[in-house]
């Protein structure tokens, strides 16, 4: 190395060293930026989860009141009566009122009585009716039963009512408060696990409302969606990937499938309204139509995922199968498809999870409706979980706030478990070549 070269080398070394600190700093900043993005995401997610949980966990409990009901034969039906028509026609609301009057004999004024009756849910009468229908022999006897309290009482017990406000601004008035306190001292008020929330359909009384109707509706909708989109999606993917010639037409189809995956979901709802309801005359608000619409929406997702899965099966497997004399169909059904299936299933589950959380297309086909009865099949009108959340969020009663959050929690549990299943499937069956 001559002198000139050495000088040059030293110059460039010093230049490198001068810039080194800056480059290290840039490197650190780059890493920090990435980490910051992740932390920000986590912060938002945890904020979302915490606010939903904090709002919603109280909904899993419900306040119950113990009533000593006298199954008065004069109000319901004579002792020994077993005819269900007569039993169901009894004036059970009157029974609840009589029990409350008995509990607070000092209340005589008509207005006060109305306030007193308001402490108990209107569901109490139905509960007593059911009890009598099941076992008519209780008529004429006295029994202690726990009935749901009214939603305002429930809110009070859960501490959602600010008692420092003037009486006129509260949903629970002072005398109601003293009655409730009286019952509490007698041990007649208790918070219990809210089974109604998981066992009932929608209701306009928060304490009687539940998500079962919506969950069953979601189940039927997804079932229809899966039954249509999975076979069609896989068949389309196999054809495009394994059989179809590569030409302008298949390119065009491929571009269109990718485009469809990006179409806003409400467009599928409009399509469903025009085709299934207006043209084929299927009824509104049924899981069948909902499932068909969501199938259209998830098809592109499934086709794309399935094609990727098929692509990842190495050509050597196909060549070996063809080489030992398998027909192309045997090659696909015996070798390629089983190897690609885990990837296809993963894509399908993610597509289903997306469909489960979808509301917009269902608005168009009338699934945003008040439906009390739990659907018994794909042709019964029903709501789905996200729609139920939407409907509750729009209800005036305060107690629906916590129920909205609780329903979101249930939906999140379903979504997370579906995604975990997809991850598990991928981990278990994934093969690297």
């Amino acid at each position, binding site marked *: 190395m001559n002198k000139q070269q050495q000088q040059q080398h030293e110059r460039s070394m010093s230049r490198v060293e001068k810039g080194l600190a800056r480059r290290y700093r840039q490197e650190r900043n780059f890493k920090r930026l990435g980490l910051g993005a992740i932390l920000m995401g986590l912060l938002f997610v945890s904020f979302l989860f915490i606010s939903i949980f904090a709002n919603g966990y109280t909904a899993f409990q419900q306040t119950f009141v113990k009533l000593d009901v006298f199954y008065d034969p004069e109000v319901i039906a004579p002792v020994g009566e077993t005819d269900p028509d007569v039993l169901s026609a009894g004036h059970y609301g009157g029974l609840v009122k009589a029990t409350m009057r008995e509990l607070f004999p000092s209340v005589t004024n008509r207005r006060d009585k109305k306030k007193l009756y308001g402490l108990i849910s209107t569901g109490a009468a139905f509960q007593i009716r059911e009890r009598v229908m099941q076992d008519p022999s209780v008529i004429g006897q006295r029994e202690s039963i726990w009935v749901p309290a009214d939603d305002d009482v429930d809110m009070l017990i859960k501490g959602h009512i600010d008692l420092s406000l003037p009486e006129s601004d509260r949903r629970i008035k002072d005398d109601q408060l003293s009655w409730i306190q009286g019952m509490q001292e007698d041990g007649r008020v208790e918070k219990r696990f809210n089974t109604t929330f998981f066992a009932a359909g929608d209701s306009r009384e928060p304490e009687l409302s539940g998500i079962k109707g919506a969950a069953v509706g979601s189940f039927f909708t997804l079932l229809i969606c899966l039954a249509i989109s999975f076979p069609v999606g896989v068949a389309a993917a196999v054809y495009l990937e394994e059989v179809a010639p590569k030409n302008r037409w298949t390119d065009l189809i491929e571009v269109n499938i990718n485009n469809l995956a990006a179409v806003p979901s409400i467009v599928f709802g409009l399509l469903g309204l025009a085709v299934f309801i207006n043209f084929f005359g299927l*009824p509104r608000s049924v899981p069948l139509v909902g499932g068909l619409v969501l199938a259209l929406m998830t098809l592109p997702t499934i086709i794309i995922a399935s094609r990727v899965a098929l692509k990842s099966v190495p050509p050597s497997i196909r060549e070996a199968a063809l080489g030992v004399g398998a027909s192309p169909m045997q090659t696909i059904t015996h070798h390629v498809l089983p190897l690609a299936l885990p990837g296809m299933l993963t894509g399908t589950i993610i597509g289903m999870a997306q469909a489960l959380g979808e509301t917009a297309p269902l608005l168009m086909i009338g699934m945003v*409706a*008040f439906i009390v009865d739990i659907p018994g099949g794909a*042709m019964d009108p029903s709501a789905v979980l996200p729609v139920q959340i939407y409907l509750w969020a729009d209800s005036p009663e305060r107690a629906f706030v916590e129920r909205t959050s609780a329903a979101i929690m249930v939906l999140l549990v379903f979504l997370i478990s579906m995604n975990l299943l997809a991850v598990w499937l991928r981990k278990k069956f994934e093969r690297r070549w």
Partner: protein
Amino acid sequence: MKKLISAAVALSLTGFVGMASARDYINVVGSSTVYPFATVVAEQFGKTSKFKTPKIESTGSGGGLKLFCAGVGVEHADITNASRRIKKSEVERCAGNGINDIIEVKVGYDGIALANSKAAPQFSVTRKDIFLALAKEVPDPKASESGRLVANPYQTWKEVNASLPDMAIEVLGPPPTSGTRDAFAELAMEGGCKKIGWIKAMKKKDKKMYKSICHTVREDGKYIEAGENDNLIVQKLEANKGALGVFGYSFLDQNSDKVQGSLVDGVAPTFELIADGSYPVSRPLYFYVKKAHVGKIPGINEYLAEFTSDKAWGDEGYLADKGLIPMPTEERKAFKSDVDGLKNLNL
């Protein structure tokens, strides 16, 4: 194999069509304002009768009447709720599709409240103030009788009316698709607009112009469209003390610990004052029944009987508990007898 598949497909298709041709539940569509009341009746009806619970879709008044008037038959709605009266054009549309007999039932009244957070002072406005604060174009403040309109210059309530607080105008309300917005424009804004002599005189000459002056809401960000969700407006009012919100009385009733209704023309939006008609911003609620379906779809008669019973829409009924303002006894009686006799709508 192929035959089997095609047979199965054919069978399932006829199965669907077969199932679609019979319906054993009542199909109700329509206004989101009537929805909270109709659903309570439906639930009560479903639980106490041997019929299935009616299905109630919240589609808005206009959307509901469109579905209702689409035709006669099980695939069409039996009843539509409306937060305004049916229009002549809609009756004609119905008639065009073979629906000649419609039963009109007035349910009760709904007050529209202009409310703000409890933490802020209560407002007392006149309808004229509301018009001046929220209209897109108002009479020139320098020469209000000149008949000249200018783009709304008012920035604070004090500028509108010196007796009002010095707070920036900020009103959260429903979007134009909402029936509540229509009623607010008609009752509150037009009510105030009429107080200005030369605009009132215009009503006879140029009705269209009059309507556009009175009903057009300003679009410079002072009136904020907060969506159809009234709960959201209540929450926003709580967070934003300087804002007022427009929503139905039932939401005011349920949130009386958080928000307070403003006095309009000196009258507070309370149950009693809306019921006796002294609160100026209240409107009737209706539902319409397709007579051709009565007797075909099980339970319609019984549903009507439940809705028009005293325990539902009476002064002490369960609908009043949910925030519906009942009609006076006489009016209730008249509508009840119309329903019992299935009397036809006559506009």
